């Protein structure tokens, strides 16, 4: 080294730079091997400071995981808890919106209503269609059982006057929902059964 006629300071700087790049290389190698064969699971949460756990282990909003089925739970004091089963076979983004339960949380939600998606009723935390039920007129009624909030897909109960049996289905469609996504209890008979 002395043959290069470098001062001690220069030598130390060069040595430090080499050490830095060495660490960088190690980091790159570690990072490549660490993410190989894994997929990113991104969890979008509202409130943004909610706690995310994946299979019971606390996680950041982006987790690099091997393919498989994971249980993702999102919690925050004063809000509902959301648990979703995720089958990870590619990079995936899921959303978890927590509805407020405590008074403080409700105040926060009212002040941050714009943070929630338009079709999410943050006042109840229900699936969007349940927030619009019951819906009825002189001809039909569309309602959901109290247990519907915990069912997926939710069960919807339909009653209608004869001759208007298709009207409630059309109504669900006109609300902007796909009727195929729910299960039904009809309070009138089906001649084919």
């Amino acid at each position: 080294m002395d043959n290069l006629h470098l001062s001690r300071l220069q030598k130390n700087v060069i040595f430090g730079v080499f050490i830095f790049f060495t660490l960088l290389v190690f980091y790159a190698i570690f990072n490549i091997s660490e993410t190989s064969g894994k997929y990113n699971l991104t969890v979008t949460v509202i409130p943004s400071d909610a706690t995310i756990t994946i299979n019971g282990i606390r996680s950041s909003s982006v987790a690099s995981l091997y393919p498989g089925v994971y249980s993702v739970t999102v919690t925050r004091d004063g809000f509902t808890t959301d648990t979703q089963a995720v089958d990870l076979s590619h990079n995936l983004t899921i959303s978890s919106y927590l509805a407020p339960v405590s008074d403080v949380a409700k105040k926060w939600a009212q002040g941050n209503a714009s943070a929630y998606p338009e079709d999410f009723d943050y006042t109840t935390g229900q699936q969007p269609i349940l927030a619009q039920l019951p819906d009825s007129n002189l001809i039909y009624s569309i309602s959901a059982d109290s247990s519907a909030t915990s069912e997926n897909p939710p069960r919807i109960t339909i009653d209608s006057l004869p001759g208007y049996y298709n009207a409630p289905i059309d109504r669900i469609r006109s609300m902007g929902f796909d009727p195929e996504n729910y299960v039904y209890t009809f309070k009138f008979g089906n001649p084919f059964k």
Partner: protein
Amino acid sequence: MKVSKLKILIYILILVGFGYWFSSYEKGLLRTVTLETKGPSYKIYLSTNKNTVISTVTNKVTLKLHDGYYCGSTSDSNYDTATICFMVYKKDLTVVFNPNYSTKHLADLLVPEQDIIMNIIKTKYSNILSGFTVCNGELYATGDIYGTAVVQKTASPRDNATIYRVVLEKTNNTWTVIKNPELVLDATTYSGIPVDVLKSIDIQPTC
């Protein structure tokens, strides 16, 4: 001491060189991509360069591809000609092209099946079908799913006719009614049928 520092320097240079080689190797690595088609042949190309066909898949082919975004397209008019794209990234991949038939081809296939299907429906519901009209219906997917509307006859054209929907599936060359006709075909009950097909049947025009 001098020798020691020189050794460390050489050691670090080797490490840096190895790291550089490893990262270059990772970037330039070829992935084994298996492409299979259940229907027509597909031309494979980089999404950014449609004119340069990398390979044509007629049955099953294994290619060595760099990481990137690739697409496959078919010109077989009997099939849905929508382009199917896939991403090769860091690992080997298997892609199966399994397109649905085109609307025209499905309509052509329905012609010889129509009477058979009608007879099955009319036989199964012979006791009540006199009060209903079974529409011609349509075939879906690869011609093995059939859906139609069953419309209740009314005393007056001004009356509302209740519309039921029924789905038949062809297995082992035999058509079978999956479930009794319903007002709506929900994805839970018809778990074996693609939701898009259920939606199409549910909004199929009546006769």
